[in-house]
């Protein structure tokens, strides 16, 4: 067995790098923040300087400190929401897809209802049901956001499970005597991972924006610091009209970068799970040199084969002859998933 290796394209590395920075600040943010984010004693309305890297607010608070402290709540809420939503979508989607029949019809209807419900309105209603003290709890906000965000993932998972259920390898695993739950989780499961990953990424992104919007609208307590409450205060004090761009740029940029990093990581998960996308971990330049197309062509699978070392004992009787990087036509091969262009 080869050891687990993270895919090494630049996109993925950038994604890991960005996300790890944000996760680092999620952990240490409140400790490394230069000032107390709620302290109002600085000169108001300063543009970025060495004293205040992201300037100060109209109320005389340090924006950088607010950003660092607020990172924790935003990310914790988003990941809690993402994980809960994915768990719900796995349960509902896999069951609907694998069991089928009446169960599928009922669950599909359920999914459709949640898809068409206006999420934000539902969120506002549900959030208001919680007592004031609970509304700041990341677990509570996360679960409520998950409640409106799981349906899309469930629908995609159901569709993917349906297409996998009748594949020959699923039947083959039954033939060799595999138990049902193992068939679902060990045979179908890994084939669903890219969908799960993209579903997780999508839901976390959704949760970042939704929790931000909730805070921005003042529906969650505005006294705690996250990127949403920062934007709330910025707009409440007309930062945009006053030209205080640094007040807005910080949280907006942070949200965009979190989204970018998750999307980049998703590419990598895709390549790891779908071996067809992994041309021997070659970079674009290396692929070009090897005469391989940079994008998978329809019906053609880029295949990277180990070149046999002449005289090496393992390869001594290789039937397949000297193999080099080759684009092998496998037009009749049903791809495990569509190759991403």
């Amino acid at each position, binding site marked *: *067995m*080869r050891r687990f290796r993270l895919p090494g394209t630049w996109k993925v590395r950038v994604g890991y790098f960005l996300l790890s920075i944000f996760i680092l600040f999620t952990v240490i943010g409140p400790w490394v923040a230069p000032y107390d984010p709620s302290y109002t004693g600085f000169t108001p309305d300063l543009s970025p300087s060495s004293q205040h890297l992201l300037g100060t607010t109209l109320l005389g608070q340090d924006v950088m400190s607010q950003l660092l402290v607020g990172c924790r709540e935003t990310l914790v809420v988003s990941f809690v929401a993402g994980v809960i939503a994915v768990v719900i979508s796995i349960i509902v989607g896999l069951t609907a897809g694998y069991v089928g029949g009446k169960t599928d019809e009922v669950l599909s209807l359920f999914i459709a209802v949640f898809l068409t419900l206006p999420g934000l309105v539902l969120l506002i209603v549900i959030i208001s049901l919680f007592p004031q003290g609970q509304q700041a709890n990341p677990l509570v906000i996360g679960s409520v956001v998950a409640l409106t965000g799981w349906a899309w993932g469930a629908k995609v998972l159901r569709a993917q499970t349906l297409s996998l259920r009748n*594949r*020959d*390898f699923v*039947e*083959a*695993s*039954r*033939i*060799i*005597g*595999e138990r049902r739950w193992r068939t679902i989780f060990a*045979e179908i499961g*890994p*084939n669903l991972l890219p969908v799960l990953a993209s579903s997780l990424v999508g839901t976390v992104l959704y949760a970042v924006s939704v929790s931000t919007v909730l805070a921005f609208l003042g529906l969650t307590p505005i006294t705690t610091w996250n990127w949403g409450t920062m934007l709330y205060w910025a707009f409440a004090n007309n930062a945009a009209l006053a030209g205080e761009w640094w007040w807005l740029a910080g949280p907006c940029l942070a949200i965009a970068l979190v989204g970018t990093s998750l999307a980049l990581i998703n590419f990598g998960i895709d390549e790891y*799970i*779908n*071996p*067809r996308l992994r041309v021997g971990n070659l970079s674009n330049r290396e692929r070009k040199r090897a005469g391989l197309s940079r994008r998978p062509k329809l019906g053609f*699978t880029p*295949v990277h*084969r180990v070149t046999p070392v002449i005289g090496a004992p*393992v*390869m*001594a*009787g*290789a*039937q*397949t002859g000297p193999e080099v990087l080759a684009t092998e036509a*496998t037009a*009749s*091969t*049903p791809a*495990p998933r569509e190759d991403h262009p």
Partner: protein
Amino acid sequence: MNQIPANDAVVATTNGITRGEVILEATDLVRRFTAKGEGGLFAPKKTLVAVDRVSLALRAGEVVAIVGESGSGKSVLSRLLARIITPSAGTLALRGTPIDLRSRRTTAYANEVQLVLQDPFASINPVRRVGRSLERPLRIHGTPKDQVQARAYEVLESVSLTPPQQYLDRFPHELSGGQLQRVNIARGLSVRPKVLLADEPISMLDVSVRLGVLNLLRELCDAHLLAMMYITHDIASARYIADETAVMYAGQVVERGRGTVVIDAPVHPYTQLLVSSVPDPDQLTHQEHRATTANAVGFNLEGCRFSPRCPHATELCHTSEPPMVELEDGHSAKCWLVADAAQRTAVSMRPGPSSEG
């Protein structure tokens, strides 16, 4: 779970299996499928009889070929024998022991009867390395961890994938169709089954590697005293490999015989049609060929199933089902043309076709 000794040849003989012994016997297997009827929500459901009273005996060291066109029920038959699909009626006996068909299929049964699927590209999990797919059945069937790899090497060698180390770490998409089908067969064989059911194992392969896989199956059958069922629509390959051939049409066995007699001297009009559709290099002039299919014509459910397509069909064929008639030793056909004259008069003397259903 029992541990499996390391040497194949020893197992095959010391387990008390003798060549020609009946390993898996099916009697009057029936499988019906119900489908939604045409014409609205409350239309009556249609019943399709995919396998209709098929009896079959698979013997150690022998290959039984099942020949038939698409939709003749041969694949369903293989899944009935593998107990992936539950029969609607009929009995199965493994080495003389009747099997309770309502009970769940057990690991022990999977250990004895293995099925090799048609499409090697689809039947091996694309995200797993070949080694994982191959080692999994061994783990399920209780091979100790330290012996799994040795056994995987052994089966890969037995299907002529050498050196085995080279294949275990590959992904399925890195192997060719022929290699994959060998892996597929190796997976079936890894648990040392007594019965191997091969569902069109060569139909998805390049013509150039078909013979190799066929020879491999034959060798494995002889070496391990496997009872093998070989399903195909290619009558030539059946003639090449089989000890016994059965021709299926619309779920029924219409002609069967030992050796090559079915293909060399076909009696049933359907078998004759199948044989004549094989291109004959000695006869290069264009042959007029009936291009009808069962789907175009439909089945006759009352009389002989083949009667709508049969060039020799008589009134009798349309109204009552012919019996299976033994012609000579081990060769029988289900056709009124060869039925005993006494039987024919007995049927035609009856007041008319029964109007049940």
